[in-house]
């Protein structure tokens, strides 16, 4: 049994949100530079140049790259031999979020869905815990903006739809979203499972490092084909025309029921904001 103090969990969450909001994920700015080379429309090139410049300003000034600093999503893989001491795990995460959003001058965007009254400190966080082997805790933070989150969709397809039905659904999601999710986007696609696990799987794809395609050859092929089909729609950066709407498509799958073919699509903007640490 290894002890992990709540204070260190709180401090890690705080730092990870500050980092994720002010620095693009590794490799993202390179993808935007490549995309810019591939555009001919002057306004498409200008948009991509601005996004690259914006990433530089945010990093240099340690200021949020985007004003939508999101809902605080936290994935936590908790080793079953880790013992959290000095408080409750969930409280430590919430306090880390609270401090990050106050200290970093991040926008507080969380409110009651019906009264629309803001909670004032961007809590509660959305926390996804998973018990894993080992004695460590691995934390991923995703400040999830809702321009992209709002465009996400799930479909419980019939098995008869097959691979073609899955591909058509994902392309249709992109086509319907247009410029709203801040393209060029990253798409997380979940296949299989149940209604909720499929959605979760699609979001987990956003934790992948840039440039890492699926190790499953069939899924890797689907990722490449989806990206080709979506970019061929010509929607381009910000949906205003061009060659790059989608920077990467990531597909994950898990077993499902004989009656089912669930598919979920989670959109993420061009920054792919996330940060990771292990305690």
């Amino acid at each position: 049994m290894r002890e992990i103090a709540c204070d260190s969990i709180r401090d890690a969450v705080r730092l990870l949100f500050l980092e994720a909001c002010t620095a693009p994920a590794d490799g993202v700015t390179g993808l935007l530079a490549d995309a810019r080379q591939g555009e001919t429309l002057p306004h498409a090139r200008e948009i991509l140049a601005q996004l690259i410049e914006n990433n530089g300003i945010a990093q240099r000034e340690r200021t949020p790259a985007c004003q939508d600093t999101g809902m605080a999503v936290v994935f936590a893989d908790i080793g079953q031999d880790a013992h959290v001491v000095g408080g409750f795990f969930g409280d430590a995460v919430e306090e880390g979020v609270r401090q990050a959003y106050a200290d970093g001058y991040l926008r507080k965007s969380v409110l009651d869905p019906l009264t629309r009254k803001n909670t004032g400190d961007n809590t509660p966080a959305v926390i996804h815990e998973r018990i894993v082997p080992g004695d460590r805790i691995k934390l991923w933070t995703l400040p999830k903006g809702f321009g992209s989150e709002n465009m996400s969709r799930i479909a419980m397809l019939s098995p008869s739809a097959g691979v073609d039905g899955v591909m058509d659904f994902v392309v249709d999601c992109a086509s319907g979203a247009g410029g709203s999710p801040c393209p060029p986007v990253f798409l997380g696609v979940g296949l299989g499972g149940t209604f909720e696990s499929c959605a979760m799987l699609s979001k987990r794809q956003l934790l992948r490092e840039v440039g890492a395609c699926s190790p499953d050859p069939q899924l890797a092929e689907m990722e490449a084909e989806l990206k080709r089909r979506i970019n061929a729609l010509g929607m381009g950066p910000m949906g205003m025309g061009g060659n790059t709407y989608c920077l990467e498509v990531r597909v994950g799958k898990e077993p499902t029921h004989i009656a089912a073919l669930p598919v979920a699509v989670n959109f993420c903007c061009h920054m792919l904001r996330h940060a990771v640490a292990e305690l």
Partner: protein
Amino acid sequence: MVTLRLPLTEKDIEGLEAGMRVRLTGDVYTARDAAHKRLVELIARGEKLPFDLDGAAIYYAGPCPAKPGQVIGSCGPTSAIRMDAYAPVLFDHGVRLTIAKGPVAEEVRRSIVRNRAAYLCAAGGAGALISHHITAAETVAFEDLGTEAVRRLTVCELPLIVGIDSKGESLFQ
């Protein structure tokens, strides 16, 4: 590239064409979901509005808090689509320019044509860069809404692209 100063003249608006790159200078008002709801409710009740809509430019944005020494925090555009329910009412009441990101409903496009207005787009996610083009910020209404309050921003050479022009030509079709 076109350089424009607010408020726009009829000629300025007529000269805009979808896809054109613009640098905009002058005063704009921020309003997003909650502020739009209130403005449209005030109009429906025939009450006085907190700022003059006639000829106004509305920027769909809710900034981050300003750090000490900053005019404003990160302040990029939000999605225009969520204001579809309100935008035609505001165009019909004098708004000449909206600034946001992404597509709008067909009804909004028609109200832009009807009112000889225009929709300009800022780069979504470029909030830090855009904040460098804001030289003054003052809350003018609905302070209780926090980030969603109406602010008058003075922008200087704000980089934009014409999304929908006064003839109804759109980059989103």
